[in-house]
């Protein structure tokens, strides 16, 4: 009788311990943390200003971050493999220049889309080729191509702007889904996000990216063509940059050589904040989705509270650092806990 009681008490203890463990694991999951921060942010801004929690405003705000959020998707793949690309803003500028010039020459909308995507894909492939086949560090190559791509658009455009576009070109970046207040751009982002999530989490291709990020050497020995995959990542990023350039040019209907300056940092911030490890092999599309919404609405809310752009830059820069520092501290905490438990058992 007493044995049984003891057993019940013991099992309850174990269950409680397991529950606590599970709770701690759950709440230290990056996606969950991000959601909590997001909710806190929404509550904060709604109490501060009554314009924040307004369906039309919330939807309209997506115009400000959809393009960057789209760019963050292929960047997940690049960072997942332990690479980095700091030339994307320049690729966008180059594509936008091509689009603007072609439009001035009277090209049709489908032709513009093809041109933009071709230019972007070529630029991305160039990056990938340099990084993988010449085996040069991604940061060094993209630092150089950042100047090269941007330099071409500065050199060709000078201080000019291209502002002549076909009649319905504004459709992609300015319009809403018919009859609703949901921007077309945002819907496009959601679709792309689902595709990227499917590829990363449900296909062999995605699992291979994780493998490369964890150990490129081991991945190569297990028969994964590491170089090919990395080139595809860079080329894909170029492709999406071409797409983004169309959206951006369509939204602002003006192309200058300084277009999209500083986007590199913001896009990398979105990815890192979304929980993708900068050394590769860890992260999810869902996390980056949450990170994108978080940063997008943080900027929107700060704008509503009349904070200056300068302050926003400081906040974004700090977010990037905190986003890397925090998971490390969490990992440390978890490891310590595990160690303590092991000691307790033995």
């Amino acid at each position: 009788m007493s044995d049984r009681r003891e057993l019940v008490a013991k099992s309850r203890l174990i269950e409680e311990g397991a529950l606590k463990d599970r709770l701690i694991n759950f709440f230290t999951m990056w996606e969950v943390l991000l959601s909590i921060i997001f909710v806190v942010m929404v509550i904060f801004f709604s109490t501060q200003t009554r314009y924040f929690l307004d369906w039309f405003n919330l939807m309209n705000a997506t115009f400000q971050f959809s393009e960057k959020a789209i760019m963050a998707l292929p960047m997940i793949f690049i960072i997942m493999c332990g690479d980095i690309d700091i030339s994307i803003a320049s690729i966008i500028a180059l594509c936008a220049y091509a689009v603007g010039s072609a439009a001035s020459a009277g090209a049709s909308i489908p032709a513009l889309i093809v041109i933009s995507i071709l230019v972007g894909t070529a630029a991305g492939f160039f990056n990938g080729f340099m990084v993988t086949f010449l085996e040069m560090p991604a940061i060094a190559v993209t630092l150089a191509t950042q100047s090269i791509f941007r330099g071409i658009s500065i050199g060709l455009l000078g201080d000019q702007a291209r502002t002549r576009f076909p009649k319905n070109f504004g459709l992609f970046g300015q319009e809403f889904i018919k009859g609703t207040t949901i921007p077309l751009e945002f819907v496009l982002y959601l679709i792309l996000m689902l595709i990227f999530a499917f590829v990363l989490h449900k296909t062999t291709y995605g699992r291979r990216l994780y493998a490369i990020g964890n150990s490129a050497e081991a991945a190569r020995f297990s028969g994964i063509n590491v170089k090919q995959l990395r080139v595809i990542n860079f080329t894909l990023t170029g492709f999406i940059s071409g797409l983004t350039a169309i959206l951006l040019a369509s939204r602002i209907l003006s192309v200058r050589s300084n277009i999209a300056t500083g986007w590199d940092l913001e896009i990398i911030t979105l990815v890192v904040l979304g929980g993708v490890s900068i050394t590769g092999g860890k992260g999810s599309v869902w996390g980056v989705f949450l990170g994108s919404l978080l940063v997008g609405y943080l900027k929107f809310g700060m704008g509503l509270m009349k904070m200056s752009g300068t302050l926003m830059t400081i906040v974004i820069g700090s977010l990037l650092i905190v986003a890397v520092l925090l998971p490390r501290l969490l990992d440390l905490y978890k490891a310590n806990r595990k160690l303590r438990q092991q000691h307790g058992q033995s």
Partner: protein
Amino acid sequence: MVNKMVKNVFARREATLMILLAILLVPITMRSPQFLSPRNISTILNDMAILAIVAIGEFFVILSNGIDLSVGSIIAFSGMACGMINEAHPVVGAIPLLFIGMSIGLVMGLFNGVLVAYGKIPPIITTLGTVNIYRGLTFLLSGNQWVTAHELAPSYIAFPRSTFLGISYLLWIAFIVIAIFYYFSRFTRTGREVYAIGGNPTAAKFVGVNESKIRLVVFAISGLLCGLAGALWTARYASAVNEMATGFEMQAVAACVLGGVNFAGGAGAVTGVVLGTLFLGVVTNALPVIYLSVFWQTFVQGLIILIALTLNTLSDRRKHTKLLAQRRAE
């Protein structure tokens, strides 16, 4: 034997740059003979002095297998601070301002260094964050205002232009910095430890090199030199603008890569960086001579980096295969 080989490699890299520089100068001088006039040479050298100072700081960071993208913003902040101090208290002369600039830069560099060394955040992420934080702080500090030439004390503006033995103070300072850090990189224990950490961190740790300390030191050096550069920048260009030195990290990195500094860390020399800076200066100054618009400057810089990078990589690989073949033969 190994020592001799290493020496040979460095000698070759610097020799190549010298030869390239000479080859480059021939058509330029043929096109415009006054390019090599003492006056123009002194202009180029003075233009490059600040870059040389910053590039040496960047060199140590790259040597330790890191990168410092925040140099431009540190220059801007310290330059703006020096300009505002000089505007408010004209009695504070140029030399105290240099030290103020250096201390400001040192603090910012240390902040980077602590995050990298003790926060274990990769240098690229750390400085990608701080490049914006520091630039934002510059705007906050100045309240979006500029400090213009007539608000600065004449003595401060005159400082970099004043000459001693026919050479401007600006160049003297650059020479001193080069000399100090040449000595530091070659003959001090900490300097050699930077090479060790960059070359093979695991091996370096096993022989007792304190990795965190070295990472902190390189960022501190970079910050210190950027602070100095900021104080000089405001004086030389006779104004402090919030956007000053934007994108200067590109040029600093370009000078290093041109000078044969290996991006993977552990290889390179101060002399190479100085020559790389000079090379960049000649190219930038030659653009108008060959009738290329200034708008192409960014492109040319990027192209030079990429070419230098490719050459570095290819020659490294050749050396590597040669070494392997040698070892096999033995």
